[in-house]
């Protein structure tokens, strides 16, 4: 727990890269308090009454969007959802026009997911409202990294000094980038593991160890984070077949023994059972995959709460 009181001063949450360890600590500590709200008989507090939140999803998402929506409702905010299908977003409107139209409705916060990196940043510059990045291309997904860190801290009591193995499709994952930033800042060691064809060039520049076999990545890990093989993005096929992938890189009970005895298994979802992870591991005693989902709501409540306390500077 951080004892020094720091104040949140950012209008937006765009990525983990720009946050200080103290800010990350504040977010996690605040999320800790909000997790208690989720255990109450009435899971709702009046904190954001009268605030309007727009959820703007240019890419399909079930879990993240539902998680944000529940977090918003538990804080008594009014929320409106826009998604690509059937909206003006599909009818050729430019992003800037969309932003100006949103601004005209005077929301307090905008949650955005977009396939192109940097879109939330562009929106943040245009809007008076606070902007929360819910995933921009393969760039960042800050609330996912925060909920992962929150889950790790719940089980291990700390982040510093831990060895975290992140395994799978490193190249296409925005989750991994945010996680690397966060874990490095908080003093954990990150090992990324996976097939060479799924590893971005110069990945070690991000400050991680690299392992090209599952076994090397797992050895001595406190936390094993499996990433989804994005079957829909494998048009160019980075590996021969799902079956072959599982044979080489699938997390099985036998292989998990290489990690520490008390290692926890995580997955940001959605999972491909029998591709990157065996069913009995996903459902096993070491798996905290569903806890991640629960904690996601608390973390997003914390983000909404902290951002809504910051008023945007007057437009010049």
């Amino acid at each position, binding site marked *: 727990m951080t004892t020094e*009181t720091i*104040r*949140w*001063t950012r209008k937006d949450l765009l990525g983990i890269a720009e946050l200080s360890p103290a800010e990350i600590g*504040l977010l996690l*500590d*605040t999320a*800790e*308090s*909000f997790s*208690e*709200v989720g255990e*109450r*008989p*009435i899971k*709702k*507090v*009046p*904190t954001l009454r009268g605030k309007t939140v727009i959820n703007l999803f240019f890419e399909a998402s079930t879990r993240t969007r539902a998680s944000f929506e529940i977090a918003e409702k538990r*804080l008594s905010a009014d929320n409106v959802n826009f998604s690509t299908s059937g909206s003006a977003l599909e009818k050729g409107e430019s992003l800037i026009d969309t932003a100006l139209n949103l601004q005209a409705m005077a929301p307090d916060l905008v949650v955005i997911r977009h396939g192109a990196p940097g879109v939330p940043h562009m929106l943040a510059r245009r809007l008076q409202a606070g902007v929360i990045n819910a995933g921009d291309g393969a760039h960042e997904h800050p609330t996912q990294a925060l909920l992962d860190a929150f889950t790790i801290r719940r089980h291990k009591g700390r982040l510093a000094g831990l060895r975290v193995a992140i395994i799978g499709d490193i190249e296409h994952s925005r989750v991994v980038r945010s996680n690397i930033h966060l874990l490095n800042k908080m003093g954990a060691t990150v090992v990324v593991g996976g097939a060479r064809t799924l590893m971005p060039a110069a990945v070690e520049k991000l400050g991680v160890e690299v392992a090209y076999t599952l076994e090397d990545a797992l050895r001595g890990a406190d936390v094993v984070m499996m990433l989804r093989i994005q079957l829909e993005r494998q048009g160019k096929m980075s590996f021969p077949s799902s079956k072959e992938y599982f044979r080489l890189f699938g997390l099985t009970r036998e292989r998990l023994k290489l990690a520490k005895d008390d290692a926890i298994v995580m997955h940001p979802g959605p999972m491909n059972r029998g591709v990157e992870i065996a069913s009995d591991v996903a459902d096993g005693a070491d798996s905290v995959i569903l806890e991640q989902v629960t904690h996601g709501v608390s973390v997003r409540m914390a983000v909404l*709460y*902290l951002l*809504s*306390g*910051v008023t945007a500077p007057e437009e010049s």
Partner: protein
Amino acid sequence: MHENLTPKNTILDAKQMARIIRRMAGEVVEMNRDLSDLLLVGIRTRGVPLAEQIASEIERMEGHKVPVGVLDITLYRDDLSTIAAQPQVKGTSLPRPIEGATVLLCDDVLYTGRTVRAALDELIDFGRPRAVKLAVLIDRGHRELPIQADVVGKKVPTSGDEVIEVTFQSTDGIEQVRILERKPPK
């Protein structure tokens, strides 16, 4: 945290505070014939050590351990949009269901009444207590809402530019109540 505050005088020292809290505990026992329904709830931050001390005095007098809960009213404040950055949320914990309980809210200072209003709103979201009562160490007047305490340690008439500072051994290392004066900036 405090802008230009200078100590004016000490109104209670540790001994006087202990005596007053003992008397308050006595009043709580008198008011509640059945202590088994009683739940003390301290409002964060300085209401919590007050609740704990009242509980331990009750235990000493009656041999009955009264449960103590903690209420963090941050999420129920009515001034969130008018303060610069969000205050840190530290969490609520109630050791028993409040359904049917007699809840004694405890806070160090009663001033405008807005904290108590927020505490009542939050409490009621946890269920329907049989009754809610209020105990405060210092009542300094200047209410902005129709709220009164049932058990008062000491009434202290104050002016608007004075601040009452209550400190406890457990939270601050010293047990006393002081009046501080807000100095106009030079």
